[in-house]
């Protein structure tokens, strides 16, 4: 049994936090995330949600309060965007290093200066190396499902790491879509109450996260990397189980669309991965064997899946909504790094092209994606990439 909620992705994130029976929420408003924490305030004050809501004075404090609450043994939630996420940066490291499975909705927004309230992935991708799992959603249904799934994955004793569930601001955050939410009892059955890996306890006193010498520090880092590898195995399992129970699956680590026989595979994240399905359908009608791989999980990065895609394709084209200044789009880099071989072989890996699109919220239509694919197709046939990084639709 499910109930249909027609609402924005932000409100849907709040519904998901409620459905996950979160016990402490600490949050600070920021555009375009604000309506999440407003909705949660409504839920808490009306008694629909049995949680303590800490109205902190900054995002830095929001994350620190989540660390404190989670360390004291309860499930916590927060949400932020852009500069709020950047302000949290120090505590993001602390949360992951403390092995606390906090789940946070990140409503993606471009970083200033100059000010922008429109979406790109510059905020969350700047936090790539903090030890947080990163999910990127393509629609409101996926926002709901991924928040529930994230708690199950993160709280697993083999993982015990925090997660960001990202969705593009305005494109999803303020757009109404129908979402099917399972009944509360069904969610409770899928996601049991939080059983912490460790908690502050007066009957079992110890200092947590105290000074660690070089003799030990590296092992703590190794354990986080290990946990990421465990998460990589667990994410598709949990997604499949969720699908079996409730009917929605989102591709595990990477959602593949018409990739089996594709010569050219477009690789992207978030809503561009939803828009690109229309492009693939149109290109197929024209006889171009184009496929689509939507990277749903950026950390841990699905490098094995990327390698599998590369086995039959002649070219992979990364469409990135963010640039690493002085390098290129993040996906382009990760794909190339994944494909670099550990042994000499007779066959070259496929070509990898990089396009930057939609930065700072510039619209990316299915038509844009078709044109990107056609340009890539030409390079693929010629066996040569003419331009290493293309800034799509750049003003002259």
């Amino acid at each position: 049994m499910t109930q249909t909620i027609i609402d924005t992705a932000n409100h849907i994130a709040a519904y998901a936090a409620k459905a996950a029976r979160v016990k402490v929420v600490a949050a600070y408003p920021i555009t375009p995330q604000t309506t999440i924490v407003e909705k949660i305030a409504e839920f808490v004050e009306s008694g629909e949600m049995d949680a303590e809501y800490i109205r902190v004075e900054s995002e830095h404090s929001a994350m620190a309060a989540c660390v404190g609450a989670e360390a004291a043994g309860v499930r916590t939630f927060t949400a932020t965007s852009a500069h709020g996420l950047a302000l949290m940066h120090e505590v993001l490291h602390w949360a992951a290093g403390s092995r606390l499975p906090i789940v946070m909705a990140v409503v993606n927004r471009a970083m200033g200066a100059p000010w922008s309230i429109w979406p790109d992935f510059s905020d969350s991708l700047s936090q790539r190396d903090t030890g947080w799992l990163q999910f990127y959603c393509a629609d409101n249904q996926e926002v709901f499902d991924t928040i529930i799934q994230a708690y199950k994955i993160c709280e697993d004793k083999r993982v015990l790491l925090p997660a960001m569930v990202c969705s593009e601001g305005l494109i999803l955050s303020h757009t109404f879509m129908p979402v099917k939410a399972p009944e509360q009892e069904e969610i409770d059955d899928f996601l049991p109450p939080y059983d912490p890996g460790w908690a502050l306890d007066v009957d079992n006193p110890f200092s947590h996260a105290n000074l660690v010498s070089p003799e030990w520090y590296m092992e703590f880092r190794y354990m986080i990397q290990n946990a990421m590898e465990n998460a990589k195995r667990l994410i598709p399992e949990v997604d499949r189980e969720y699908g079996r129970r409730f009917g929605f699956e989102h591709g595990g680590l990477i959602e593949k669309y018409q990739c089996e026989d594709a010569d050219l595979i477009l690789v992207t994240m978030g809503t561009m991965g939803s828009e690109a399905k229309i492009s693939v359908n149109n290109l197929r009608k024209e006889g171009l064997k184009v496929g689509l791989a939507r990277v749903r999980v950026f950390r841990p990065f699905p490098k094995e899946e990327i390698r599998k895609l590369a086995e039959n394709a002649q070219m992979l084209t990364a469409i990135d909504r963010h640039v690493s200044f002085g390098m290129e789009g993040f996906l382009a880099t990760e794909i190339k790094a994944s494909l670099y071989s550990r042994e000499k072989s007779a066959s070259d890996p496929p070509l990898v092209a990089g396009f930057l699109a939609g930065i700072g919220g510039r619209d990316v239509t299915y038509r844009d994606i078709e044109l990107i694919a056609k340009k890539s197709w030409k390079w693929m046939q010629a066996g040569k990439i003419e331009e290493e990084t293309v800034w799509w639709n750049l003003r002259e």
Partner: protein
Amino acid sequence: MVTLKELPKEEYILKGNPACAGCGAAISLRLMFKALGRKVIMIVPACCTTVIQGPYPYTAFKVPLLNIVFEATGAAASGIVAALKKRCIEDVTVVGWAGDGGTVDIGLQALSGAAERETNFIYICYDNEAYGNTGMQRSGATPFGAWTTTTPTGKREHKKDMPMIMAAHGIPYVATVIPSYPLDFINKLRKAKQIKGTKYIHILSPCPTGWRFPGSKTIEIGRLAVQTGIWALYEIENGEFKLSPPSARLLDKSKRKPVELYLKAQGRFRNLTDRDIAEIQQWVDETWEKYKRLQAN
């Protein structure tokens, strides 16, 4: 009021901890634990206690302790308090324990937020009047004239009045203490434990290493701080200011020892000119005029 005989024998800070000899913070930790008992959860940011608690895999305290980033003590404590409430744990005292840098400077925002939200916890600032863990750099709590590594010719500004800033938040309990007066220290902490809401305790914590005096003189230096009036012991309970017994009699200026006695006992003040000392004496006397007005109200 507790007497020395009634103090618990149990120690919660263990021998062999890495505090400097004569460390005012280590003595304060011992007294704090004796006052509050074992049902305490501590939250500690970057400060000397990051070291005093001992390195992994050891721990020098018999209470659970969460380390947190420098500026976040008040916020992390808010999270712990909220979680304990959800878990219906009512007999545990949450203690934020931070140095002066982590309180009056970088951590002021998070502490102010926690106080404004009426978070039910005790925040304790142990103030050695400089960034001690990084080797004595100037903080907002460093007094006028004091040498630090970032004020090599002496600080030119006076100390930030943090207890009064906290009192201005309208919290139910603010108190100043010093380990040289252990019963006053313990009684105030025990009182704080009984009060609901945010309680703020400010310890002047003599620091032999940073203040440049022998480790055997910690208690003596602390007594001089009180006797000269450079540090006043008081409580502000529900807005009502009250000087504590060791300080109350010093309202009469003639009862106060000259500040020079306190200053001359410490290497950090060795470069003070007579004019500097007069400036500090005047600052102390003006501060006491303020206490006189507060006490009268």
